[in-house]
Every structure is written in structure tokens, then in C-alpha cells.
């Protein structure tokens, strides 16, 4: 029996590792934003490096899992769905890394009054990503629990939308240069995109879950 499941267990471990990388990567993203807003550049650079490592690890794990699923002809009836799921959840950490990198390159000058708003927005995005990771884990192990997690992804995505809208209104009501306002709005959009990516994957996951339960 152990022999029968040996290869499968190794692949299960790789899928868990990939999901861990995405989960930890998004948490690092939140810490990175917090440190940037606190103007702690040394720690911000550390987080930037860490998220790049998580992203690269997630990429190589995803490729390895996809190759094994095809090479070993595993789960033929769900393989397409699982590949779609893994590729799209990988976009979440890609987005987080890209946004943190934009902060490093463009160095937006965030007024202290807006720092907590940016942080709240980042937290909502990270919460939605965390629940998405839980939903994907449930897809593999406990299909009945997937909807519980998916509805939280949607909740935090809406929360992020609301916070982003509030932040943009705040930015444009302040006495700042138009260029700076546009720059700040641009970063608001960047941070907000994380929850949008999580929502995209949750939409797919909802369909895959229905397909598996009928």
C-alpha cells in the first residue's frame, strides 16, 4: 500500500509546498508594504528579496507538478482544472512581487495620513489571498469545505474595493500636485489588484468544485 501511494504522496507534498510558498509570499508582501510605509528601507529590501525567492520557488514547483501530472497521466478527468488552478494561483504571488517591486523602483511619496489606508488595503488583499490558498487546499482534500473559503475570498475582495475607493477619494481631496495624486492612485490600483487576482482564481475554483461534486 505504501508503495502504491509513494509517488502520489510526493506530489501531494509538492502541491502543499507550492501553496505554502504562495501563502508565505503574500504575508511577506504585507510586511513589505508596512515597512515601506514606515520608511524602514533595510527591512523592506529584505522582504523584497524574500518575496522574489517565494515567487521563483512557486514557479519551479508549479512547473514540476504540471510535468508530473502529465508524464504520469494522473487525474485525467481533473488534470485540466488542476493545471488551470495552479497557473492562476501562481499569478497571485506574481502580482504581489510585481507590486512590491514597483514600490522599490518608483518610490511613491506616501503622505503619513494615507499610510494606514494603504496598509488596510494591502491587508484586505492578503486576507483574500490567504483564504484562496485555504480554498485550494480544500479542493484537494475536502471538497465540501471549498465554498466556506471562497465566500471569504469574495468578502475581502469587496472590502479591498471599498477601501481602494475610499483611498482614491482621499487622495484626490488632498492638497497635492496632480502628478503626485495620479502616482498615489496608481499605487492604490497596484495594491488593489492582489485581491482581484484572488477573486479570478476563486471564480474558477467555484466552477471546478461544481464539476467535481456532480
Amino acid at each position, binding site marked *: 500500500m505504501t508503495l*502504491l*501511494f509513494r509517488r*502520489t504522496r510526493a*506530489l*501531494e507534498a509538492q*502541491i502543499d509546498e507550492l501553496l505554502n510558498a504562495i501563502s508565505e509570499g503574500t504575508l511577506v508582501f504585507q510586511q513589505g508594504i508596512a515597512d515601506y510605509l514606515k520608511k524602514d528601507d533595510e527591512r523592506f529590501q529584505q522582504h523584497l528579496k524574500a518575496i522574489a525567492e517565494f515567487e521563483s520557488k512557486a514557479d519551479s514547483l508549479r512547473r514540476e507538478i504540471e510535468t508530473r501530472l502529465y508524464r504520469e*497521466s*494522473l*487525474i*485525467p*478527468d*481533473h488534470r485540466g482544472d*488542476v493545471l488551470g488552478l495552479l497557473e492562476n494561483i501562481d499569478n497571485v504571488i506574481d502580482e504581489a512581487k510585481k507590486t512590491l517591486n514597483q514600490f522599490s523602483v518608483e518610490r511613491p511619496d506616501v503622505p503619513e495620513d494615507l499610510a494606514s489606508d494603504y496598509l488596510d488595503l494591502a491587508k484586505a488583499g492578503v486576507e483574500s489571498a490567504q483564504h484562496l490558498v485555504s480554498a485550494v487546499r480544500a*479542493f*484537494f*482534500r*475536502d*471538497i*465540501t469545505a471549498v465554498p466556506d473559503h471562497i465566500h471569504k475570498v469574495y468578502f475581502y475582495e469587496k472590502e479591498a474595493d471599498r477601501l481602494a475607493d475610499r483611498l482614491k477619494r482621499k487622495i484626490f481631496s488632498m492638497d497635492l500636485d496632480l502628478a503626485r495624486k495620479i502616482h498615489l492612485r496608481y499605487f492604490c490600483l497596484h495594491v488593489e489588484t492582489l485581491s482581484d487576482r484572488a477573486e479570478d482564481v476563486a471564480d474558477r475554483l467555484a466552477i471546478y468544485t461544481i464539476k467535481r*461534486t*456532480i
Partner: protein
Amino acid sequence: MTWIFLLSGIFLGWSLGANDGANIFGTAVGTKMVRFRTAAWVAAAFVVIGAVAGAHGTTKTLGRLGAIDAPAGAFVVALAAGLAVVLFLARNSLPVSISQSIVGAIVGWNLFTGRPTDLVTLTTLLSSWFVSPALSGAVAAVLFVAARAAIPRLKIHLLEVDVWMRAGLIVVGAFAAFSLGQNAIANVMGVFVRVSPFPETVSLGPFRATSVEMLFFLGGLAIAAGIVTYSERIMRRLGSGLTSLSPLGALIVVFAASTSLFLFGSAALQDFLKAHALPGWPLVPVSGSQAIVGAILGISLVRRSGIRYRVLVNIAIGWVAAPLAALIFTVVGLFVFQNVFQLPVSSTSQRRPAAASVAPPPVR
């Protein structure tokens, strides 16, 4: 000579193996859950075991319908049954079955030779054609509902479900092959039982086999050869096009269909029921393909995914067309064998001496 007559039975076994082997492992191989080589050898081994060890209940039933007692008669009956199936399968893609055409062929032999047809046995056989797919449909529906409710609750990783499914497909495939061998051997070799060319008992080292067992072993090998040599292309077509079953669906369908074949073919089960004063049912050869179609329809009903009524109509057409065609082929074939080749097609038919037909009338 009798050995040559056996060829039609071997051909029948080979074509049955090619088609029904595909039914057993079609989806598993088509969806690449099981490799063809694994599927073919498992099916081949178990079909032979089923044919030899599965007792002879279904053969006795066919024997009651018509006791063919001349090798040439048996040859024509088996050939006509095979031709009827090949003709309808090839021309119209109707799900016709050797289990049904053989009945028409035997009745044809009865009509030609003037032997009475046992109407009770005939009615039993006809009713089983309906009961078998209905039974496998009911079993499939119940299993599908149970599996759909149970699997999510077990909280097994998707990849582990996949491993269980592969193992299940092989185990259920082996059971299906055993049931097929046990049930269908009557179709392939049943008509040759009374004219077997094998000696009464055969000893091979410590093994002893009766003439009938050797006959069934040969028939089993013919079915196995059909599975190994020709079922692959049909399997690939089944798995990728005609039916869109998931591996779980395939597992349930094959299990339900083989349960039906097993129940209608197992003399051991029948004896057990009798010994415990439980109600039994007749042992009759039933169609594997139609049991599979019945199981798929059972699942379709539960899933409310719509039923293609054309499939049901085609099965019903097959119930009439295949035996009728086999009956006509048999009568024509027997006529040709008796009058052209001048071979006796039953123990009571006389080989007409060649001289008699040209003898001059007595001169007065």
C-alpha cells in the same frame, strides 16, 4: 472434421472478446487510467478462469432450448450467430449481441430439424434481455448516488482518489472479465457441448479436465485472444468519443454490468441460494454491451443528464433484428450444408447418398 467445425465457435469467441473486452476496460484505457497491456492481460486471464471455473449454468439453459447433436449443425448455428452480429454492428452500429443472435440461431436449428422449442426456456431467455440492462441500471444508479455522497465525506486527497480509482478499475475489470467468461462461454461453445472433439477426460500431469472443460478452456482462450489482439482500437474509441464517462462513472458502470452478468451466470451462487431456501433466478447468457448501456442510462437518470431515447430504441431493434437474422442465416446455412455439402446437421437427419439422387427409377 469436428475440429474444423469448432473454428466458427473460436471465431465467435474472438469477436466477443474484441467487443466485450472493450466494454470492460474501454473507459479506463481511453482515459489513460489503465495501460492497455495491463488491461488486456488481466481481462484475458480472468475471462479464461471464468469460462472454465464458472460452472456451466448458462450452457445448460441454451442446451434446453436446443440440443444440437451434429458438428455441422453446431458449426452453422455458431457461424450464423456471429454473422448476424457482425452484419448489424458493422452496418448499423446497433448494440446487438451474440447472446441474442445465438438464441435465434438455435431456434432456427430447431425449426429446420423439426425439433420442438422449449417455450418456457425461450420466454426466460427473452425476459432476461430486458431484466439484465434494467438490473445493471438500477445497481449503477444506487452505487452512483452512494459514491457521490460518500467520497466527499471521506476527505481523501484528490491524487489518492486517483490511485484508488486505478486499482478499483483493475479489480472491477478482473471481476467483469470473470463474469463475462462465465456468462458468455455458453454463447461461444455451448452449441458444441454434445459434439465436443475432446476425449471424455484429459490428464495433464496432476490436472484432469473433462471434455466440456477443455472445450470451455478453448473458448476462453478464443475470447482472451480477441481481447488481446483486437479490443484496443474499440477501447480507444469508447474512452475518447462515444461515451464521456469519468473514471468513477466507468468504475460503477463496469461493476454494475458485471454484477448483472455474474448473477445471470453463476451456478455457484444459484446453488448457494437453493441450499439456503432463497429464491433464485434462471441462468442465462445475457449481453455485456446491453448491461453496460443499461448501467450508463441508470447513471444518466440519477444525474438527470437526459436520456437519448434513440439508444433504447436501438436496443429494442437489436432484440428483434439480431435473433431474426441469425434464425434466417441458420436455416439457409443448414439447408446448404445438408443439401449441397451433404453433411448431417442433426443426429436424426440423414446424409443423403449421392447415388440416390441420380438413381434411375425402377423399371417395371
